[in-house]
């Protein structure tokens, strides 16, 4: 077993692009779920808005990549209104059901053959990132840095952009939550009726929170799409939202630091578990007392089982995560 390699991969995963795009998605989800108490289970759909906003510039509109941000914003606002109008007046679990259902509709539509000319079907969309690639100051072919922090020029470029966005949005969210707006949404999480009695339009604040969180999620989808150089419908399945949620809960809900460090730890742990199990089963299935426990093809499911178990245990025993405080955990609005 190559322990050095496992550790190297784990350390680099803490700062990798996956952690960056998860952090952006988690910051968005934190605005909705952590601060406002909105149970958005469709963050992957907002991420898809960003990714497809970029992709459609080349696939459908034939305009430059930067228009993608505008298209993405338009899609996010449409989606936010569509999901928010029917549900934000209702109990939290309705929002959960409707957002997850909407995310599924979005995924079905973008991967359908019927709308292939707009969204590329199940093959997705490629070749939209050249203008982003051209901006890169690094040589895309060359390797930079030393192991375990060694990246190709292009990965380094997306990582720098991704983490810069994480820092910018963390700071903005920090300021936002210190502002009167932030105090209102936190008060909505604690007691909606009290806020209403002060003459605030709760519905409108919730909608703003949903859309602002969705916009941050949109940038997450964009960074992911730019890094992979393609948009694939199945990268925006409902499970992505749940993994982001797990990462957020791990770091600590309703904390800016939690929404950044949670995803880093999530990816560190995930890559560690994945690499460890792969090394364990590299040559032959791992056995215990003569019973086969795990073989190569089962590494993936076991990783995800651990994520599910982790989410259950966290929610039960440490719902405030690592950095959160129990006082901020008034998730149950009823």
């Amino acid at each position, binding site marked *: 077993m190559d322990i050095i390699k496992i550790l190297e991969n784990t350390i680099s995963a803490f700062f990798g692009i996956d952690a960056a795009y998860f952090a952006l998605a988690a910051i968005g989800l934190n605005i909705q779920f952590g601060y406002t108490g909105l*149970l958005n289970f469709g963050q992957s759909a907002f991420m898809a808005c960003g990714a497809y906003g970029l992709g459609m510039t080349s696939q459908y509109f034939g305009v430059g990549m930067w228009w993608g941000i505008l298209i993405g914003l338009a899609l996010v606002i449409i989606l936010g209104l*569509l999901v928010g109008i029917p549900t934000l007046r209702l109990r939290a679990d309705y929002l*959960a059901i409707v957002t997850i*259902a909407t995310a599924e509709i979005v995924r079905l539509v973008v991967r359908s053959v019927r709308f292939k000319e707009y969204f590329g079907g199940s093959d997705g969309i490629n070749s939209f990132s050249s203008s982003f690639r051209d901006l890169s100051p690094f040589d895309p072919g060359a390797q930079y840095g030393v192991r375990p922090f060694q990246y190709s020029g292009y990965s380094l470029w997306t990582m720098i952009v991704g983490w810069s966005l994480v820092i910018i949005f963390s700071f903005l969210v920090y300021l936002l939550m210190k502002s009167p707006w932030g105090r209102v949404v936190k008060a909505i999480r604690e007691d909606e009726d009290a806020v209403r009695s002060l003459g605030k339009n709760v519905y409108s604040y919730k909608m703003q929170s949903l859309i602002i969180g969705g916009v941050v999620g949109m940038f997450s989808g964009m960074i992911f799409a730019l890094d992979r150089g393609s948009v694939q419908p199945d990268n925006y399945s409902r*499970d992505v939202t749940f993994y982001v949620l797990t990462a957020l809960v791990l770091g600590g809900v309703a904390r800016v630091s939690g929404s950044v460090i949670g995803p880093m730890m999530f990816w560190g742990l995930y890559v560690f578990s994945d690499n460890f199990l792969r090394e364990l089963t590299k040559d032959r299935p791992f056995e215990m007392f003569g019973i086969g426990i795990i073989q190569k*093809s089962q590494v993936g499911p076991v990783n995800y*089982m651990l994520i*599910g178990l982790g989410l259950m245990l966290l*929610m039960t025993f440490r719902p405030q995560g690592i950095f959160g405080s129990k006082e901020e955990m008034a998730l*149950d609005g009823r």
Partner: protein
Amino acid sequence: MNNSKSRCFAVARAFAVVVGALIMFSAPGVANAAESENSIVISVLDQANNNGVSEKIPVAGVKVSVTNPAGLAIGEGVTDSAGLATIPVPAKDDYVVTLDVASLPSGVTLIEGTKTVVNIVKDSFTTNSKRVTFFAGTAGESGASLFDRVAQRLVDGIRLGLIIAICSVGLSLIFGTTGLTNFAHGEMVTFGGLIAFWFNVLLGIPLLIAAPLVIALGGVLGLAMNGIIFAKLRKRGIGLISQLVVSVGLSIMLRNMYLYQFGGRTRPLDDFSLQVAKSFGPVSITMRDLTTAIISLVVLLGVATFLQRSRTGKAIRAVSDNPSLASSTGIDTQKIIRVVWFAGGALAAMGGVFRGLDEQVGFEMGSGLIFLMFAGITLGGLGSAYGALIGGFFVGLLVELASLVVPAELKNAPALLILIIVLVVRPQGILGRKQRVG
């Protein structure tokens, strides 16, 4: 405080349960999940001709089989929503692929000149999988009349609706009695299908004997979910939203446990898998599907009678209506909740067996239905058992009828749109009580 100590114990216990489950499952699992190296991928595509624009639409639900040149069966499958069926074969060898023309959806016929039998020679395996494509063409108006197509969809919709109704009764009752929106309910359906597969295919027990066992085990799974997890959470006073998130974690864990154990392919049950459809006027239905539909209907009527007439049924409705009032009249609320979890798990497992007969058994069969179940119980009224019956039934009907208008790959979308519309127009659903839901 020894709070942290008991917490450590609880964490350790949870791990022990998972490790134990892994060991318990893994004996047949490792052999089982090993995907065979070689396979034949059969793809059925409908080259619909829409206003001169040709597009290829995958055709789902077509039965295909692979035999060796001597006619000995190697494997069979049904195409999925991508129009694909993957049939593992033992080696790169000569095979014969046959498409069952009778299983083509009504209105779809093979293009003239397309053979229903394709011979594969050993050398044509360039990679481990060999692809065979059958091209179909929608016959359009000339194939089946609109009336015939509607009639066929109506029958299919009734069947799907009955299955969804059976699966979602438990979901709605659990919500009504405990307030929990259980995202892991789809995994209870999958459990039924997979255990039926285990009994029927791996152990060779006839399905008619295995099915009652499966249903009982489904009930036990429900009891276990309540006893090990959700009853504990209620006792600790953990909020409903947190419980919901726990059920999401449980759903992810169970689904991947199934994937770990069963592998990613979908497979048919042994019994009743080959059926010839009988025609009744414009519609055709296999005896198996007719039987499961009748059993479903009888079960649903039984559930409704039980809730309406029996003492326990009345108590369930009372707890659903108002838990504190019910418990103050001397109803043992916790016992009622256990009954509901048992019944919900058993019904979900039954739905899983029927669904497994209808389509195939796979690790995602239940999680694919959960959206339709949510749509059904929201339409019927969250928490109302009768609402779940009616709502689930209508959603199934809607999904099948929608496939007349929208492409098959999008046929679930209208049901999910209905969910959104219901919440705007009448959030309490058809039978829900008008209460403050905000």
